[in-house]
């Protein structure tokens, strides 16, 4: 009898007695924030890799497996994952994350999206995102909103840990606030610096820190540049004083290099996502890295 109780005790100890939310995030940034807020009470997996283009992720069947077991799906929405996530969610046949189930967190609607087209859009303008620019996690202030949304929803799904989630949120928000002040100070001397990017991925980052986006290497969203477009870009930007060309690690370098030389700018490679480079491991780390890289590069630029 005594042994039987012992076995029962062991069994309880080994089984997942601790309630854990199984969270799947579309990109590592949302995953990192979920980890920060959820702590020990969540198990987080991210689908897209930090090193890849989030618009063009392969809908691997293993993702169906992950989504099938998920309690929570966090996605950016606003067409960030439009090319790959919808079929996966259908195939996963998991009511917890379908439609407007409480386990499905679409972040876009909580964020004030920039770049919402004013007039009518059609695809002759390239693959414009009509709901606004979906790369919103690159503004640290939006990170705070995301964390708040996650804490709220996790608390709803796991009410017994509400206090824990709120505590994590408060700690994160406080840390982020002081970090933002530091980042602002570090980049303050560079306000107004003119920048060119590849895709409109860094708009939120540039806007937050007072940089000015004067052009993109893509002629239109999602459209590769032609030689004549690059020539017209060079003509337009020569003598304008563009200091930086910012590209993500996964972009081809040939055209950015060429453009940088032609207009006398410096090429700066910055990750647009957590885990985009090995040094960036979480949300705050992404900005620590990007701010430090930007500041040190601009110091060397005359």
């Amino acid at each position, binding site marked *: 009898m005594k042994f039987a109780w012992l076995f029962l005790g062991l069994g309880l100890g080994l089984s997942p007695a601790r309630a854990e939310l199984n969270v799947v995030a579309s990109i590592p940034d949302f995953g990192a924030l979920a980890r920060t807020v959820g702590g020990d009470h969540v198990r987080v997996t991210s689908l897209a890799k930090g090193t890849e283009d989030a618009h063009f992720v*392969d809908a691997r069947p293993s993702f169906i497996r992950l989504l099938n077991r998920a309690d929570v799906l966090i996605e950016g929405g606003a067409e960030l994952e439009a090319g*790959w996530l919808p079929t996966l969610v259908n195939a996963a046949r998991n009511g917890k994350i379908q439609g407007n189930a409480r386990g499905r967190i679409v972040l876009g609607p909580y964020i004030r999206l920039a770049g919402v087209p004013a007039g009518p859009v059609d695809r002759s303008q390239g693959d414009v995102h009509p709901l606004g620019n979906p790369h919103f996690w690159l503004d640290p202030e939006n990170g705070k909103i995301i964390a708040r949304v996650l804490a709220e929803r996790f608390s709803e799904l796991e009410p017994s840990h509400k206090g824990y989630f709120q505590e994590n949120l408060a700690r994160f928000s406080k840390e982020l606030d002081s970090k933002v002040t530091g980042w602002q100070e570090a980049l303050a001397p560079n306000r107004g610096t003119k920048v060119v990017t590849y895709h409109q991925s860094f708009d939120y980052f540039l806007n937050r820190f007072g940089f000015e986006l004067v052009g993109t290497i893509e002629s239109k969203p999602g459209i590769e540049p032609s030689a004549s477009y690059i020539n017209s870009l060079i003509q337009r930007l020569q003598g304008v004083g563009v200091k930086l060309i910012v590209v993500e690690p996964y972009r081809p370098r040939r055209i950015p290099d060429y453009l940088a030389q032609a207009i006398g700018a410096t090429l700066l490679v910055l990750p647009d996502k957590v885990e985009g480079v090995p040094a960036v491991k979480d949300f705050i780390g992404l900005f620590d890295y990007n701010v430090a890289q930007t500041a040190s590069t601009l110091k060397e630029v005359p």
Partner: protein
Amino acid sequence: MKRRGIWTSFLACVSAAALHAQEVSELELLRKELQELRESFRRVQEQQRRQIEALEQRIDALTVAPAAPAQPSPAPSEPLSPSPKAATAAPAPSRTLAAPVTLWGGQGSYLNLSLSALTTVGTSTASDIESLQLGGHDPKQRGFTLQNLETVFDGKVDPYFRGQANVIFQIDPEGETIVEAEEAYLETLALPANLQVKAGLFMTEFGRLNPTHPHAWDFVDQPLVNARFLGGDGLRGPGARLSWLAPTPFYSELFLAVANSQGETAFSFRNNHEGEPFLGRPALERDVETVGDLLFVPRYAVSLDLSESQTILAGASAALGPNSSGAHADTQIYGLDLFWKWKSPRHHGGFPFVSWQTEAMMRRFEAGAFPGDVQTPPLPDETLYDYGFYSQVAYGFRKGWVAGWRGDYVVPESQAGYEQVLGPDPARASRWRISPSLTWYPSEFSKLRLQYNYDRRQELGEDHSVWFQFEFLLGSHAVHQF
């Protein structure tokens, strides 16, 4: 006097010039001043815009969670209003590129519509292009072919089902427009026990290519083995399919479809082949008498991630059902498929990648005995075995550019009894084909493709064909299935 006059005019000239110069510099000064004012105005405006945005954002950050219960929410099931900006910002456009042709009501989409048009122009050395190109959507004539004009309707039906209908138009070599209801099915959204039911008219999940539409193919035409065993329009029909996502640590799914076994889309089954004899025999009238007279298609698919950047998807399928050559004759088709893909972990717009896709099939056809008539001598019953496979590689070498290579081979096990009587049957004769191709996707919504086919048919010899294909896609965002 004269000299004075000269002096006067000289002075006048100089003063005029000076005056002019003065005017110019003043103009420049004014311009500069205006420019500076404009610049500072722009800066102030920019700064204030930023301040406004920052304030708005801080308000958002503070209002998201706590304000939620107090805020009137649009849907009763949404206690947390997802849109703190709704009250302050202009409403987002009620139209998105994900579904530009969408019937909307308030915040929801009820029906997504998209259209893809696939056209090919080209030529071939073959004098019988219609029998050279076996696929129902293949170009079958010199000049232009409208291969496939496909309209897709899809959306969530209700909390239980998703629905999709594909209606296609084609123009045949005679210039007649053909309309086909290709698919029209509903699919359950969240059945318990990881089950899913699909019911209606659909392309059977046999192998990898059969359930896909021509615009998703890597080549202009259909692989020979698919056309020879599953038919030019693929294996599809009204039916129902149950699938189960198995609780294995990797992805694995079990499918079982039951469908009607008759018609030209059940090619090797109860198909009258438009009155022409098939594998020597004219078609018998056969009705469905028992459940066993339906078509059964089981399939098992497994996928593994070999590394961060490599995925493999393998499957085994079978299609089992009666055929029209005899009262008790059955057909069995077995297939194996393999898909491997490497995609750079640092891809830009999905490139570079390499994919390799192979399908091998075997058909066992029980041909019934034929008593003989005016046209055809008597034939014994016999069992015919046929084999075939294709293998293709696609290499996306830079954004928008894909080079492809495909090899096709179909072969019978041996010459059939009826062929000894009637002569070799081109529907079984061995043949192979090599097809290199080059595709350019100017965007996700258009493509241009050049393909060359080297065909070698037993008895008929070799043929060369060149096809140039172009496609456009309107409507819903292209969703890529693995």
